[in-house]
């Protein structure tokens, strides 16, 4: 005794080969479930090529651990967004960022937000003067070294300035509310950030690693290097940036992780 290997017509008991929509013997329709050979996913979250966002550190109202499946073509996140709302985070613009598909690839686009979108760097990333980046709870901007303005006046009086040291660039801490905080001129070509023993130290920032990140001027180019920090270093994106599985983003105070099923 053995089981029939195919779908068997419920009308005439004939065997129906797979892929047939009607029974060849009696013409009865084959139910849709029986026609598909490919297994279906238990849930949409398993669908390949579609990404989801996991809220790792969240908005007070929306909580942590939420996940958003990005099934549509655009997904707007913001303080007043419908799809990915973070209503209680006033660091987010009403319409802050948009998650879009570019072919098979997911990308995030800054929708002209006040505070920007930050993506965790993998290892290192190029920087330009004016770029912002985050380490721990700290937000920084990279600025150019101002031109030396300590030369003589027309009346030949010299300006007395504090001793200057050669410095390729400077890092400015941006405080909540928008005021500039610490300014650190690079020691020649580099400036390092961490909890201790660096050029810029934050002993009370528990999310910083002892030596967290550094910025280097190599030739004419600035480079941001994450020093294997625990929580990573994040750079504010310009315009749009492609995302991959395991990427982390800061949207305001919210940290989200991107998951893409292969």
């Amino acid at each position, binding site marked *: 005794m053995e089981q029939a290997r195919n779908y068997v017509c419920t009308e005439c008991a004939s065997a129906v080969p797979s892929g047939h929509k009607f029974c060849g013997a009696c013409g009865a329709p084959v139910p849709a479930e029986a026609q598909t050979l490919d297994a279906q996913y238990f849930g949409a979250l398993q669908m390949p090529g579609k990404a989801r966002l996991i809220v790792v550190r969240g908005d007070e109202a929306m909580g942590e651990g939420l996940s958003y499946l990005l099934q549509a073509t655009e997904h707007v996140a913001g303080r007043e967004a419908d799809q990915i709302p973070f209503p209680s985070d006033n660091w987010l613009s009403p319409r802050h960022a948009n998650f879009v598909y570019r072919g098979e690839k997911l990308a995030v686009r800054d929708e002209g937000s006040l505070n920007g979108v930050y993506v965790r760097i993998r290892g290192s990333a190029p920087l330009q003067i004016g770029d912002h980046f985050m380490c721990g709870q700290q937000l920084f901007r990279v600025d150019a070294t*101002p031109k030396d303005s300590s030369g003589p*006046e027309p009346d030949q009086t010299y300006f007395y*300035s*504090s001793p200057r040291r050669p410095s390729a660039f400077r890092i400015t801490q941006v405080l909540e509310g928008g*005021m500039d*905080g*610490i300014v650190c001129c690079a020691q020649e070509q580099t400036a390092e950030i961490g909890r201790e023993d660096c050029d810029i130290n934050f002993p009370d920032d528990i999310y910083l690693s002892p030596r967290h990140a550094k910025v280097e001027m190599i030739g004419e180019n600035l480079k941001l290097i994450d020093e294997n920090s625990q929580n990573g270093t994040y750079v504010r994106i310009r315009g749009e940036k492609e995302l991959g599985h395991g990427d982390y983003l800061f949207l305001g105070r919210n940290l989200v992780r991107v998951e893409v099923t292969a």
Partner: protein
Amino acid sequence: MIVCSRCEKENQDHYKFCLGCGAELPRDSNGPRSLAAPNASEGRTTNAPPAHAAGSGALASAPQLDIALPTPEPVQPAPVPELEPLPAELAPLSDATSPCTHCGADVPENFRFCHVCGHDLHSDLPPASDLESPEERVSPPAVAEAPEAPAPLARLVLIQPDGSEGESFPLSGGPTPIGRSTGGIFASDAYLSPEHAEFRFEGDQMVVKDLESLNGVYIRIDADVPIELFDGSVFRVGQEILRFEGPTAPDPAPDGTQHAGSPHHGFVGRISLVIGRDSTGNSYPVPPHGIHLGRERGDVIFPEDGYVSGLHCRIHSEVGHVFLTDVGSSNGTFVRVSNESFVPRGTYVLMGQQLFRAEY
């Protein structure tokens, strides 16, 4: 950078004396002579070779100025720039250790307190030990010890780089302008404006007015007396010019979004290093509980400026106002005069490269 020919230490271009050994450094005679802290040797005792002075503790015990300079030979031993002996417990970690008498931990020998249990190791020593008391470590300010010359006339006494007194400029009654166009010693000071400042008397009080000079007039503040700072106040510590900036912040966006940023610990402003006419270098925000500035200790340190004391001054806030206090530095903290100021008797006044004491 000037490399000392005696000990090979690298010194900044405007240093007059080597930070490593105290030898006089060569100067570029064409460029402007930079303003080495003029009272560098205040409180210095000694014409002895610097090596002896540093090790003997003589710095602490004999503060009077040695003014008599019988032979103005250039081969005089160079005065030592201000480099206080570091309190022993602040010196670099000693390799040698000894067990704590309380918990047995190995404690570096230059620690006073056990770093594990906090036990005061000096409390084990007999009280009559000849250890330096904390007061003895600090060179007393020269001001206190300066000889009180009877001054029939009001005058500005020039204090020379080695701490001795130089020429006097009488200030007779009426307003007296001082500047590069005054001639004499002022003529060659490239940091003085042609018309720099004016001195006059109001009653029996001397008043100095800054004639909108480029580099300003600075007055030394008394130790331990807080002076209020305002947005834009400028002060000088060693060779460093610092500006206090009150807290400022942009308005939030019209849609109610706040500016994101690092945690704001209620900062009351920040201090910035002035490195050019319109530019500043490093800046540090000032939290309400304040910050200390010093060469070795404090929240903001100047390890390369030998004219800054180990712990020099403090900035803090009280009831919404911000204050600067000199905490007993050797070379003093100088505040830039805003328009004009009284000059109390005996006050030190800094203009261009010149340091004076006001006597009347």
